[in-house]
């Protein structure tokens, strides 16, 4: 099961937003961290793929007035998702050990 670059970013945001991850918030978080804001279409497309792969689960709830009374769809990181992120991280670390200027020790 592969994890695309953008998918990984989305997965990271879902993970870090804990219980609060839904479309708009994820979009804002990505905008803040990466400086680029994905379109809602692109974002949901990635979320649906992640859900198909079993990296996130979703639940509906929390309709508000600003949403015209539409329910939100909250996403949660699954353990499979967590493992995928760990794998991706490990891979990155292994590579960066061998690159001058990247092999810094990260603190906790």
């Amino acid at each position, binding site marked *: 099961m592969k994890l695309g670059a953008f998918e990984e970013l989305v997965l990271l945001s879902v993970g870090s937003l804990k219980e609060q991850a839904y479309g708009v918030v994820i979009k804002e978080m990505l905008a803040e961290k990466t400086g680029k804001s994905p379109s809602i279409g692109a974002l949901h497309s990635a979320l649906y793929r992640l859900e198909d792969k079993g990296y996130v689960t979703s639940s*509906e709830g929390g309709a508000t007035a600003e*949403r*015209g009374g539409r329910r939100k769809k909250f996403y949660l990181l699954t353990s499979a998702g967590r493992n995928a992120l760990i794998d991706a991280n490990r891979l990155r670390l292994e590579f960066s050990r061998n690159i001058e200027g990247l092999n810094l020790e990260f603190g906790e």
Partner: protein
Amino acid sequence: MNSPSFPEPPKWLTWLLRKICSERVLETIEGDLWELYGIRRTKMSRFRSNLIFLYEVLDMIRPFAIKRKWSNNSIHTAMFRNYFKVAWRSLFKHKMYSSIKIGGFGIGMAACILIILFIQDELSYDKNYERKADIYRVINVHAAPEKTDRWASFPPQTGQVLRESFPEIEMAGRLIPFDWFDAGNNQFRRQDRMQNSYEEGFAYADQDLIEILEIPMVYGNRTEALSQPNGILISKSKADKYFPGEDPVGQMIVLNDNTENPYVIGGVMQDFPSNSHLQFDFLISLTAREFWPGEQTNWCCWNYSPYVRVRPGTNKADLEEKLLLIRDGFMVKYAEDQGEADVDNFKYHSFMLQPVSDIYLKSKGIHDPLAHGDYQVVQMFGAIAVLILLLSAINFINLSTAKSANRAKEVGLRKVVGSYRKDLIKQFLTESFIFSFVSMLLGVVLATLALPFFNTLADKTLVIPWGYWWFIPSLVGATLFIGVIAGLYPSFYLSAFRPIQVLKGEKSRGTKSSRLRSVLVVFQIAASVVLIIGALMVHRQMTYILNKDIGFEKERVLLLQGSNTLGERIPAFKGEIAKLAGVSSSSASNYLPVVGTKRDGNAFFKEGRSRLDASVGAQMWRADDEYLETMGMELVEGRMFDLDRASDSSAIIINQEMVKQLGLDNPIGSRIENFQRVWTVVGVIKDFNYDNLREIIRPLALSGTSFGEIISVKIQSQDLQASVTQINQVWDEFMPNQPIRYTFLDESFARMYDDVKRTSNVFTSFSVLAIIVACLGLFGLSAFMAEQRTKEISIRKVLGASFNRILLLLTQNFLIMMAISLALAIPVGQYLMRDWLSEFEYQVTLGWDVFIIAGTIVAIISLITISYESIKAIFVNPVKGLRSE
């Protein structure tokens, strides 16, 4: 539900979103988008938020989100399969009607494809310059009260003034595109060879011009190719011809055996593409060139066509305004210094900047010697293409609604079983898509087959652009579009049947829609009549022009080109061919009464009045004393000048128009002057057309010279070929190094009207196509009518009605329609033809006979079409006709 503090996106956008997204994802997405919209509205304008919202909505067209029509719902595919099956069956069940629909559409589409290719090619001229938007040709406008003239020519110094006096102009380059000095046609050879060959397509150009026009180079450098005073730039194909496989830059060439002034090749350019308004093979440098002493600083002689490149972002109108400085600062001043009387005339002068990509197609009324397309023709062809398509769509609509009775039962049954109306509409649209798709295939095949013929007709080299990415998609798009256009009305019409009535077997509604059908048929017939009127008129005008008495005899005149290389030996050569039995006379002159030969405009006055009167603009031609005889022109009074009389060196002959304009009461012996000298009028010639018949006859003067680039030979014997052979022998004795080149005057004359002829041919062909399409429809419709009334006809026959009576009964509706069509078509045709004819000074009259002929042709064709089926129906045995279903 929503408090106003939360702005809502526009309704239609949310509607669109719902159309796109499937139920599964809609709620979440919609919520997210609304929320974002609200956030955005606090930061920016409503319009921008809406725009972004629209983008986000369209961005939802992604595999995961869109509604799926087919896969998740097998009932749909089953339905469509059924629609297909039924459509296919009905297509084959009514073979005749189907083939009429498809055939008509196929022809229509083929015509459209061809015409669209043609139009595309016409519109593609001069579109590929990097700085396209900044390149202009400067046009000189003379808007006198009685007549506006436009010229693409200016005095020599205009180029320099443009370059130096206007900061907006980055570059200004001049061109001399017409036959002048070494521009035009020449005998051409390499300096190291003796054999001359004849080459066309010479022009003078400034170094700046080739940079403005971004001419791509093969050898040499664009920024200096024409910077040498005797430089010449040659095209790649000519370089390959004379210097195969080498880099010819720096090589010398000789024109017309003028070894004193050879040219040096400064570069080799790519040939001008076929869609460039310029088509030259040789550009001669204008650097440091003076055609006579002081010519370059003189404001007399309007021979140069300037092009400019302006700074990006320059306002065209402002610059045109500024250019008036050239008029006020230079032209008027020069005229005053010369003491010209009509200085006042300059107030009518102004300047226009013509964008480079308009030169080819939009130069109507601008005098220049370049080949042009005609924007009107492009529009006209476009209109015809649309018309043909429309006619075939009408056939489709008419036949579909007419045959609806046969489908009524099916519709009724489907509705009973539970079809909704929209399903039926879908079904019938599917059917028309199938039709339009099959027709498109047929159309493409037909277009491919017809393309070579069309190319000959229109004098183009078009190819079907299979290789381009846009071609197939646009075909598919067109197919869908036409399917919808043609299928929309019938599908709504057919799906509206009430099942109870239909299934009870009440009279079907086949005749109910007959009013619409009649209107459409009237339109078809009227369109056919208009087209025939057009074709007839264009043809008439052509015949008229080619046979009009033009004041000279163009038949059996042989034109020997390139006689200038004979030089002093011209009289000797003339003497030799005069001995031949077949030759009645010959004359040397550069000036001939057909477009494309030399022209020389001059200003004339009565003697001594050059500072008092307005000038009379006249052509100043030079020829030898056998000119009139050879050309079959008529002397009205006086005599022809005589080259052997010394006193005749200032003798001049003028035409009647010139007598009129100068106001000479007794022309013979009166003295007139132009800026060079004073002439004595010794003869007056009858006016003859020396220009295109789009022009009126203007003043013309003729004076003597024994020299000429062309020797015209009048041949009296019937055996042209034998005479040509004899003349050829004489030529070879005189000029062993130069092969003979000749044309005939009447051919050159006819060539002036090639464009009209081409237009006429294309027009006629497409008119015929349109009429065929219309007839197909009529045929189908009359067959249907006859079929409908078989019972009625049988009863009438049994009761003893005569054949004629029944025929009249069946066709009277059509006769009425035809009358209405004619009444509509005649004014339209008249209006359109007036418009087209108005560009000719010499027009045929629009007689009633044209309308009568056109009407008769259409009436006969459609009557035959209609009667065929009707008569067939009348001959049916009544027993057969009355047998109940």
